């Protein structure tokens, strides 16, 4: 069915997250397309339902109840619209099922194993394990592991072109012997991508061809000094849609409900972020923090050129529900607790986090609980951003030349493209950011986690609908743009953060805010503070920031910068707590006192905690 935009009076869009399924209803009004209501329900990929459409119907039912309009006809969505009932267009995105979960394999853990891992991560997968000949495990242990993990897809690499053939074949034999069953759906062959030594391809084909759905693509490490990840990444994307999504419980049915293909959530959010960066002509970072994974998107300029590069990473196992326990394991409990302005019993906190993991749809009921959840969010965002910086390197999709000397130091690959001083806009999405009871909470969570430098505008997805608008933009650009600008993107304000370090109380910056047609207001902020300045919600203001000697706002130490920024619902957060390094006071009493002071300055909570 072709979508004719002029005929669309109403749009229902859902996003099936790993924890929650969200539905939004958009209607054409005299004022253009507007969001009218939203609903949500737990995602139902798991037992006892094992059918994603259940959660979709439940979320739509909530929209029905709240809007007082019939959208369902039994167990299907009423479409096209008839009178006041039904909708003209239904579409959906999905990250349910925890995204794409892969195992990768190479010959040498630090060489092809790591290249394969980078290819998989860059394609948005979760890498569950890296199996290599030298990983210290015996063949049967590798086989057992593969069977236990039940990956969605295996990427087999190994050897440079023209190199060793026997050992690559040995890895293929191990996979064939494991004969791993796919995680979702039964009775279909597990997809395997071979991206290793081209000379071994026939042997791999003989070995894996009969027992798996094998795709052979060019070697991701054709020579020791060169990586060529794009063919493997493309194959991963294709196979995800073709095999994995189609076998997730209920997706076949869901696919028949919409004339538009179901889009993976990260893909849909990425579309929106790219559009925003193009529209505003600035470097943009977007984050979507979900229950199982955290996706980070960035558009940055390549230094010294006008070329922009879009990068996307999906941080495996960093999220607020299924993966919350892993945030604690990776960040360390002390890093979570450093953001909490009251003493917490560690035993109790650990249990709370684990219970959230095993029962992922619960929400904080008390203010203390909310503060702890938001502390975890800061760490999940911080760790995800670290991973993004490490992966957002070089040129997207192009072959990345790596020097032979780098092969001994495989953890990074070239300088990161992420330049926080160049960052113009930071957009947050995902339940914990979109549904924070106060917008200032979202703003400070993002500032604390990303530590923007210079002048950076911040925005948040009002109700967590970016994914739905991303997929909508592929068939109805006008509706997507109108809803995005009016109902989705909420400008929070800007963060002003000079780079440098000093003593608390030492002069740091002078800020001058000049609203359109009004007199300038100036304020001096010493080092070690977090101060909120008023900003109109609409319109623009001119901001001039003059740093003291030793502090840099992007133009060099002590040099002033001037920017026009949009209004926002929170205001300007002047953050003189220091950058490079940023550190919280180590003494617990001082730290708690400072956190309380900063929270108050931003009006974070209704009462003191």
């Amino acid at each position, binding site marked *: 069915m072709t979508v004719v935009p002029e005929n669309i009076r109403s749009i229902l869009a859902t996003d099936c997250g*790993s924890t*929650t399924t969200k539905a939004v209803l958009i209607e054409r009004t005299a004022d253009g397309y507007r969001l009218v209501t939203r609903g949500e*329900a*737990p995602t139902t990929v*798991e*037992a*006892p*339902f094992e059918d994603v459409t259940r959660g979709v119907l*439940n979320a739509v039912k*909530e929209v029905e*109840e709240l809007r007082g309009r019939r959208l369902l006809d039994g167990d299907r969505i009423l479409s096209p619209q008839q009178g006041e009932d039904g909708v003209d267009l239904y579409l959906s995105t999905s990250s*349910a*099922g*925890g995204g794409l979960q892969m195992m990768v394999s190479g010959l040498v853990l630090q060489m092809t194993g790591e290249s394969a891992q980078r290819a998989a991560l860059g394609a948005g997968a979760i890498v*569950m394990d890296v199996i290599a000949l030298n990983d210290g495990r*015996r*063949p*049967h242990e590798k*086989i*057992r592991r593969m*069977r*236990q*993990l*039940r990956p969605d897809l295996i990427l087999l690499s190994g050897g440079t072109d023209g190199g060793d053939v026997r050992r690559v074949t040995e890895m293929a034999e191990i996979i064939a*012997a*494991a*004969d791993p069953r796919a*995680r*979702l759906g039964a009775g279909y062959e597990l997809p395997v991508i071979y991206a290793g030594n081209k000379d071994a391809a026939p042997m791999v084909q003989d070995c894996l061809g009969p027992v798996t759905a094998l795709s052979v693509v060019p070697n991701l490490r054709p020579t020791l000094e060169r990586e060529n990840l794009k063919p493997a990444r493309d194959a991963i994307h294709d196979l995800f849609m073709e095999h994995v999504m189609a076998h997730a419980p209920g997706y076949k049915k869901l696919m028949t409900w919409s004339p538009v293909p179901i889009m993976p959530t990260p893909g849909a959010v990425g579309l929106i972020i790219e559009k925003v960066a193009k529209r505003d002509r600035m470097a943009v970072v977007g984050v979507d923090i979900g229950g199982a994974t955290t996706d980070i998107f960035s558009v940055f300029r390549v230094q010294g050129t006008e070329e922009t590069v879009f990068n996307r990473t999906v941080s495996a*196992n960093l999220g607020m529900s*299924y*993966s919350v*326990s*892993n945030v*604690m*394991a*990776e960040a360390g409990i002390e890093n979570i607790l450093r953001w909490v302005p009251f003493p917490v019993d560690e*035993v*109790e906190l*650990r*249990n*709370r*986090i*684990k*219970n*959230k*993991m*095993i*029962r992922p*749809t*619960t*929400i*904080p*009921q*008390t*203010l203390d*609980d*909310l503060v702890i959840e938001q502390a975890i969010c800061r760490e999940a965002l911080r760790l995800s951003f670290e991973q993004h910086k490490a992966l957002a390197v070089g040129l997207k999709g192009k072959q990345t030349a790596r020097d032979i000397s780098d092969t001994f130091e495989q953890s990074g690959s070239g300088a990161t493209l992420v330049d926080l001083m160049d960052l113009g806009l930071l957009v947050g999405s995902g339940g914990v950011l979109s*549904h924070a*009871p106060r917008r200032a909470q979202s703003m400070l969570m993002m500032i604390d986690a990303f530590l923007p430098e210079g002048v950076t505008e911040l925005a948040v997805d009002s109700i967590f609908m970016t994914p739905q608008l991303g997929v909508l933009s592929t068939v109805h650009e006008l509706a997507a743009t109108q809803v995005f600008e009016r109902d989705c993107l909420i400008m929070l304000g800007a963060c002003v953060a000079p780079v440098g370090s000093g003593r608390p109380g030492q002069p740091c910056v002078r800020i001058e805010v000049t609203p359109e047609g009004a007199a300038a207001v100036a304020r001096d902020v010493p080092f070690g503070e977090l101060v909120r300045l008023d900003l109109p919600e609409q319109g623009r203001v001119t901001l001039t920031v003059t740093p003291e000697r030793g502090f840099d706002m992007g133009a060099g130490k002590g040099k002033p910068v001037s920017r026009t920024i949009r209004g926002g619902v929170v205001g300007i957060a002047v953050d003189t707590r220091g950058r490079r390094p940023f550190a919280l006071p180590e003494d617990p009493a001082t730290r708690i006192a400072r956190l309380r002071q900063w929270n108050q300055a931003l009006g974070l909570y209704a009462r003191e905690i």
Partner: protein
Amino acid sequence: MGHAYTPGLRVTADTVVRRERRLPLKGQVLAEHGQSVEPDTVVARAELPGNVQTVNLAAKLGMDPARVGESLASPVGSFVRQGELLATAKGLFGLFKNQVESPADGTIETVSTVTGQLLLRERPMPVEVNAYVRGQVAEVMNGEGVVVESRGALIQGIFGVGGETFGRIVSATPRADVPLEPEHLTPEHRGAVVVGGSHTTHAAVQRARELGVAALVVGGFDDRDLRELLGRDLGVAITGQEDIGLTLVLTEGFGRIAMASRTWDLLHACAGRVASVSGATQIRAGVMRPELFVPHTSGASGPASEEGGGSLETGSIVRVIRQPWFGRIGRVVELPHELRPLDTEALVRVLVVEFADDGERATVPRANVERIAG
């Protein structure tokens, strides 16, 4: 949200389970179709290729790699014992002999004339797969294993650690809300599947390990103790391969939380019978839960009772699954339609619950309760 969270755990007195028992590589299937098996019946066996040891003959003998073949005391393919002569070469002026002995029992697999390395393959290691549950072999997968089918009671936990085991079910606490302490455990519990109440501690788990308890099944456990037990923080919930000396199954969650009465009652009804237990858990899509399976004794079966869940109604029995009333059980007395503000200022759908123990009422987000059977 109008629907309560449902973990989808199965607690049933009568069901049929099929468990696939596969070798990690091709081998020999020892059981036949239709054969009755016990949990410890070996149903398939394979020999894993032994470790490979490399011996650099060229370096040890001080000779050209191209000529190491001439130095072998036994030809490629021969079996040699540890300490047995592998290769020998004449030394300086033919006066001294250089000798290399075998570092292990094994077969000489290859000798490279390029690198001068000899590869010695150690003895294969036998790997056996047992039936895990008592039942009948329903399917034979040639060279790979079998599928065992059995009928009995199945109890899924919410989280577990440790591998597969089996043993007689013994209750060690008097009630579902009593924590399992070290003193509840006695030498009679050796090899048993011990059922505790609301909670247990690292000390009790240690005691259970010392006594040789096969598995512990309790309502809750502290994450701090789990960390101590595993020696690390558990990040991603993929478990089942921990070598901790026993299997631990939590039926309810972390902290002190009484075992649900239907779970407790069913475990009690099965006391004295042999249960197969697995701690393997994967909390993600395609979820995998730890389990206890108790096969029926010759055709005996009990009434089936499946997990409730689904829509909430006035009168539904629920358990609060988040602070500040975590673990408390009550009855839904009101389901307001409109959104209500919480202490956090969030506007959400709520319900009013009347707690079973003291009759107090509380307003709780609907997302923070789970339906349980009455």
